[in-house]
């Protein structure tokens, strides 16, 4: 089953076109990666799917349901969670309040979902009464991911979760994402860090708002873009 299909999507801010005619689709259970440098349009694509910015043209469809024109809370209620760029946790809410506020009931009660998040990120359980703003960068990233999971999402979208983290912490985050995916959550991952391809099933490489290359993990790892990023040539 198709988890998300984006077709001919164009996003612009005034006269500046950030995303041009981008199409991709992936199935439930996948880890799909949008890879690209700064300004490639990755964030705009996620924000558009989430309903935070309108599409100029094109469609976004999740399963059978069109996401076009939905407001952000409707997208969240449709089972699509967005971990925004820069984490954007609530600094003056406690860790537990950060998690609670994004709980959306879907069969399981809040305590069960909360316990599952704490099991995945034991560090958050230790700091449950602390204000979000007092956490370290890595802990804040875990909190942002945990907050998105409180929605029990079918699709989890993450915007550069490794940004600003040490390589060790970034690996930890990717390892947790693999665990989340293994439990059945589809993941759409936006990154400029090519390490994330280890996780990927499929993906696209974006450049200047266009799709440069689409393919499975092997094809992406083999691409010039990734070689250059790795080898610096």
């Amino acid at each position, binding site marked *: 089953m198709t988890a998300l299909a984006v077709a001919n999507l164009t996003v612009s801010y005034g006269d500046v076109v950030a995303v041009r005619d981008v199409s991709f689709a992936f199935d439930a259970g996948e880890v799909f990666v949008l890879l690209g440098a700064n300004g490639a349009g990755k964030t705009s694509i996620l924000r558009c799917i*989430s*309903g*935070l910015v309108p599409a100029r043209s094109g469609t976004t469809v999740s399963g059978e349901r069109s996401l076009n024109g939905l*407001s*952000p*809370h409707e997208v*969240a*209620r449709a089972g699509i*969670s*967005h971990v*925004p760029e820069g984490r*954007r*946790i*609530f*600094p*003056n*809410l*406690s860790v537990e*309040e950060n998690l*609670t*506020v*994004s709980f*959306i009931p879907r069969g399981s009660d809040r305590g069960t979902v909360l316990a599952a998040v704490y099991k995945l990120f034991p560090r958050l359980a230790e700091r449950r*009464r602390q204000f979000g703003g007092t956490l370290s960068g890595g802990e804040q990233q875990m909190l942002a991911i945990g*907050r998105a999971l*409180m*929605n029990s999402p079918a699709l989890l979208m993450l915007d550069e979760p490794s940004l600003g983290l040490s390589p060790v912490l970034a690996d930890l985050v990717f390892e947790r994402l693999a665990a989340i995916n293994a439990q059945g959550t589809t993941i759409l991952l936006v990154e400029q860090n090519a390490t994330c391809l280890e996780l990927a099933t499929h993906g696209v490489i974006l450049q200047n708002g266009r799709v440069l290359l689409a393919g499975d993990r092997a094809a992406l790892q083999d691409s010039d873009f990734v070689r250059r990023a790795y080898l610096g040539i």
Partner: protein
Amino acid sequence: MRPLIPIAIVAALPALPFVNNYILAATVRALIFIALGQAWNIVAGIGGQLSLGHGVFLGLGCYVTGILFNELGVPPWIGVWAGVLVSLAVALVMGSMTLRMRGVFFALATVAVSLAFDQLARHYVDLTGGDNGLALKFLGNSLWAMQSRWPGPFVYAGLVFMILYYWITRIILASRFGLEMRAVRDDEIAAAAAGVRVFRTKLLGFLVSAAMTALAGGLYMQFYQAIDPESAFGLGQAIQLQLPALIGGLGTAWGPIIGGALMIVLSEATNWGATRFGFIGVDILVYGLVLLIVVLWAPQGIVGVLWKGRRR
């Protein structure tokens, strides 16, 4: 220590007839100030929407109560609820127009609404008394007309307001609605992404706050017996309404109580000093200084300084 405060207040009540009227009147002013501050604290402290237009709801509470009483003989017990309803209607329109704006644009839009009401109150002289304001017809001591020569009854009424509004604030803070308001205050985009209906949450907080302000406006009118456009819709009043929460601690239930009490003590002390030594308006200067100190060194307010590390 905290549970002792209500006990001390209740224990002190029978002594009220023996307290001099000056102290009682100052206490009423403090209690009115506290109630209005708590109302503003809901939308601004908890919800993060810095409204400079709450004078509109104070004014509507006063004017509607007063006009209904003077023109139609409607007792304030009923009139004030009409004021609340009118305020809710105005808040619905005003909020729908302004709450989609961010930060300073919202604040400026609420100033514009205040100015519009200021002009309306000055223009419809037959109803509002125009620039001179509206004075209640004074009937002497009357429970029905909620009038009293002695400030004592207003102390009781003010205490009821303080406790009720404190309690409402606590309930909101502990509720899902309060949590969503605080999330919106911290980060609107993250709140939307977390599934919060941002605009609806803001509007609901604005309505609750407006209704509470108008209700406290009823007490204001009965105590002062008069209202004028400047006291209701002026920028000075708009700032005055923010001080208890700003100084005491934004978004906390105790903040407006502590801040409001402190401001009245300061204002009475400086007033006394001003008349004694001939500095007119020194209280405004002291307000400004206190506000400056709080903003610079204690943005969490007095509560934030006192209860550092503890949650509210």
